[in-house]
């Protein structure tokens, strides 16, 4: 135990240095393909870190990530299509997703376990149907075109990369602050025993709603940036159920409830996804599924636990 504590900060610092160098090198030296991949990776990191607030720290298995993502994407898309500048549309996307989650949380967070999971899964479906039907505002199933920036292709790639990485770092900072603070401590007691948490004086409804709102804020912003990045969104794309499932898999891969676990999981997940997809074009989805099942089966506490186990041995 004490050995791992001595080693922990050193390893973390080294990892941070390498990561920072890589983050800077990618947009300058990488091809557009690499930059695109890195942007997706940053986006995945945002989604996984965000899910971890409610799913990992509080133990509420939310499938609402796609709902927040789509809401953010459409908020950003609709605003930009009406001439609002990009840099104002992104925070607006975060704000709308946050307000929506706060209101939704008051209702949904009364449910627990499977009931909560199913209810949260339905939210994205409802929003998708609404978006499909409200053609005047959203363009319906035809999708929505966003204004294209008048800058070069590489410049654009660099811009959206920087935006997504910046957002990922912001999400990470929030995760660290929450994990170390009063809210994170409260969420952990909720995850452990909610009735006992209320009995020691924790306002569990408020803590859970805060976690749910946090998890929506950054996802909403990611959706907003995504919309600008791809220039065209449609309901099937931004309310895709995979956007809810993938972050959960990433968090499980890396280590649920920890700060760095979801981040590590996002990186590993994307690497696996990309490698498997390139080598096994026809069976990649099935193969990726098997690898994930195997990893989670043999490492139920995530990849981060490997280092701890090695340190303890």
């Amino acid at each position, binding site marked *: 135990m004490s050995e791992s504590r001595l080693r922990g900060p050193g390893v973390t610092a080294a990892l941070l240095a390498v990561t920072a160098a890589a983050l800077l090198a990618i947009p300058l030296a990488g091809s557009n393909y690499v930059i695109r991949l890195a942007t997706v990776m940053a986006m995945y990191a945002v989604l996984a870190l965000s899910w971890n607030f409610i799913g990992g720290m509080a133990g509420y298995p939310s499938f609402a990530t796609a709902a927040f993502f789509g809401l953010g994407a459409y908020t950003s898309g609709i605003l930009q299509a009406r001439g609002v500048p990009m840099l104002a549309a992104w925070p607006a996307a975060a704000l709308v997703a946050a307000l929506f989650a706060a209101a939704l949380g008051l209702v949904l967070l009364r449910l627990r376990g499977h009931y909560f999971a199913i209810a949260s899964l339905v939210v994205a479906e409802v929003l998708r149907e609404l978006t499909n039907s409200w053609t005047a505002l959203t363009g319906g199933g035809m999708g929505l075109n966003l204004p294209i920036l008048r800058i070069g292709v590489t410049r654009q790639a660099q811009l959206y990369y920087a935006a997504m990485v910046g957002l990922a770092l912001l999400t990470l900072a929030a995760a660290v602050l929450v994990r*170390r*603070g*009063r809210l994170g*401590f*409260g969420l*952990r*007691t909720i995850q*452990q*025993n909610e*009735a*006992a*948490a*209320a*009995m*020691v*004086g*924790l*306002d*569990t409804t408020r803590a859970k709603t805060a976690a749910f709102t946090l998890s929506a804020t950054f996802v909403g912003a990611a959706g907003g940036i995504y919309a600008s990045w791809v220039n065209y969104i449609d309901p099937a794309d931004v309310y895709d159920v995979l956007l809810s499932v993938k972050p959960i898999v990433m968090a499980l891969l890396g280590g649920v409830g920890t700060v760095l676990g979801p981040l590590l999981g996002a990186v590993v997940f994307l690497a696996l996804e990309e490698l498997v997809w390139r080598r096994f074009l026809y069976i990649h989805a099935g193969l990726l599924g098997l690898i994930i099942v195997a990893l989670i089966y043999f490492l139920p506490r995530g990849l981060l636990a490997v280092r701890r186990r090695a340190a303890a041995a």
Partner: protein
Amino acid sequence: MILELASVSRRFGGLHAVRDVSFALAPGEVVGLIGPNGAGKTTIVNLVTGVHPVSAGRISFEGRRVDGLRSHRIARLGVARTFQVVQPFPDMSVLDNVAAGALFAGGAEGLAAARRRALEHLEFVGLAGRAEAPAAALTLAGRKRLELAKSLAMNPRLLLLDEVNAGLNPTEIDEALRLIQALAARGITILLIEHLMKVVIGLCSRVIVLHHGELIADGPPAAVVQDPAVVEAYLGSRFARGAP
């Protein structure tokens, strides 16, 4: 009066778990709450702590009406409880279990202060040596003491102890008794749910008896154990008739 129940009732569907119960605790009192299984003792604790709403009647703590408030609000006012079946945060350290009480209800300024205070309470209940262990690693007696430390960290003025001695061996019970006496000496008002008459008579200045959700006796222990209604309900009528 620190706690007052006035004609409190609680129904679960057709079942009257608690019916028209009234009693009051004076500050600093240690009062026993006894009765056969299913008499409504734990329901009383759940009503006072806001786990269940009352169906009728009113509950006041320090003159302030608390029925209808949510659990965490009542906890922050100064009411702590232990659970009959212990409810630790199993994967969290013993220290953090107690720190939770200090942080959310005990008015500690942040996590570090809460942990410092938690350590003092762990020393008081004799668990300081296990501070870093996960709560799940404690024995039953240890977990009962942890519950106590967690409640203490909340700085309560009223402590509801729900069968803290159930499942303990005689040595552990003696140890628990000493702890409860030390708490009473600090001036904390205690409502003690207990099956062991030895404990009740040893600790309590007053005993309240429930039977089928109704209050059937309220008085000094010596008088209550002689009360025919109590003997009938709690000790059994055959025992009462056969007793010399």
